[in-house]
């Protein structure tokens, strides 16, 4: 029966898309905050933003790694 596979596709889509979007949005938000003109912004904001972008990239690469048969065999 293919219903299970359909559910799998839905789940995988949801998880991966949400992961990527949340991480990237956080990155965008933190960069924006870091760019604000104000004296009381902590110094770790910008590195944290970049960390978010990096994590997002890693998530994408991990997804590709799971899919490409060359690696999973």
């Amino acid at each position: 029966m293919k219903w299970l596979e359909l559910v799998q596709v839905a789940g995988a889509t949801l998880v991966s898309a949400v992961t990527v979007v949340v991480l990237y949005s956080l990155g965008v938000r933190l960069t924006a905050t870091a760019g604000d003109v104000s004296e009381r912004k902590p110094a770790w904001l910008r590195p944290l933003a970049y960390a978010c972008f990096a994590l997002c990239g890693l998530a994408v690469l991990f997804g590709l790694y799971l899919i490409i048969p060359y690696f999973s065999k």
Partner: protein
Amino acid sequence: MVALVITLALFFDFTNGFHDTANAMATPIATGAIKPKTAVALAAVLNLVGAFLSTEVAKTVSGGIIREGSDGIQITPDIIFAGLMGAILWNMITWLKGLPSSSSHALFGGLIGAAIAGIGIHSINFESLMQKVILPAIFAPIIAGAVAYLCTKLAYALTSRHDPETGSKLTQKRGGFRNGQVFTSSLVALAHGTNDAQKTMGIITLVLIAAGTQAPGSGPQFWVIASCALAIAIGTYSGGWRIIRTMGSGLTDVKPAQGFAAESSTASAILASSHLGFALSTTQVASGSVIGSGMGRRGTTVRWGMAGKIAIGWLFTLPAAGLVGALTAMLVQTGVAGVVIAAVAGTGAVLYMFLHSKKSHVGHHNAVGVQEAGAAVRFRKKKALAVSRTYNKPKDEL
């Protein structure tokens, strides 16, 4: 005959490529994230790469829908020729109309029609058809649309900024999404390669099996993979500007954050289903996502009239391509003369449509009005917003 069919299959792959460039590249072009020409070049390269990544879908096509092999019906290259004819003609018609219809369904429709007319209704494996084509066709756009809706909501919620003391809105600074779109749209192009290039590989493999040069049930050979990847890449590079216009501005005005969310969902959905061997329509998934992201942002109107037009195009795709496929199959069965007539008529029709398209040229220069779209995104003041709205509204519908 086998050579003719392979040529035709590669041509189908080419039409598939330029039909579907829009899926990956319409939204970033519409938001001004990438220049149109760069976008199609990037999409072409990634399609090429994607085609090599996975061959699950090719196996579905070559070994599921039509019962081939010793225990099933002997499918002949003639039938496949007829099916491809149906698919190509339907693809050209929808391209002329600027409708983002599904190349995959055109292909399946053509093949099924040809098989029914040429062999009989018992040649179709309806169970496999239902499970691997029809069900994903219905659910994939819904899944992608729902996920895109959610992602758009999330993206806007996470990046909405208010002043902690006064509570008034700060500048939102969502420009980062524009750069992000370059990556997500690339992923969609890659995903397209893993799903759509596979269909042609499946067809060529089916021909080779039918002609007896390859064992039933085996996967595509390397030269098949390489030539299909190349054909789809060239097709993508030629760019289907008409459909890019429909997808980029016809359904809803796309902002970078929306585009980012829509593309992430499209890429995830396609890659996940490619992995399981579902031959779904990348076009339908992408359209679903665009609509979903349109609903996810307040103040965006989805043009349901246009969405309805596209949906009707989808409904017609299977039967229409099937009809052409069936007619061609009957013609081909009359003998060599029939094959010649079918080939000449098909080429003539394609040429006619190509020439007809020249009359109302839609190229990279006027695909979505990049300048206006860019202005719509870069707004900071209310006035600029109003101006860009009046720019974008009266887009002539097709």
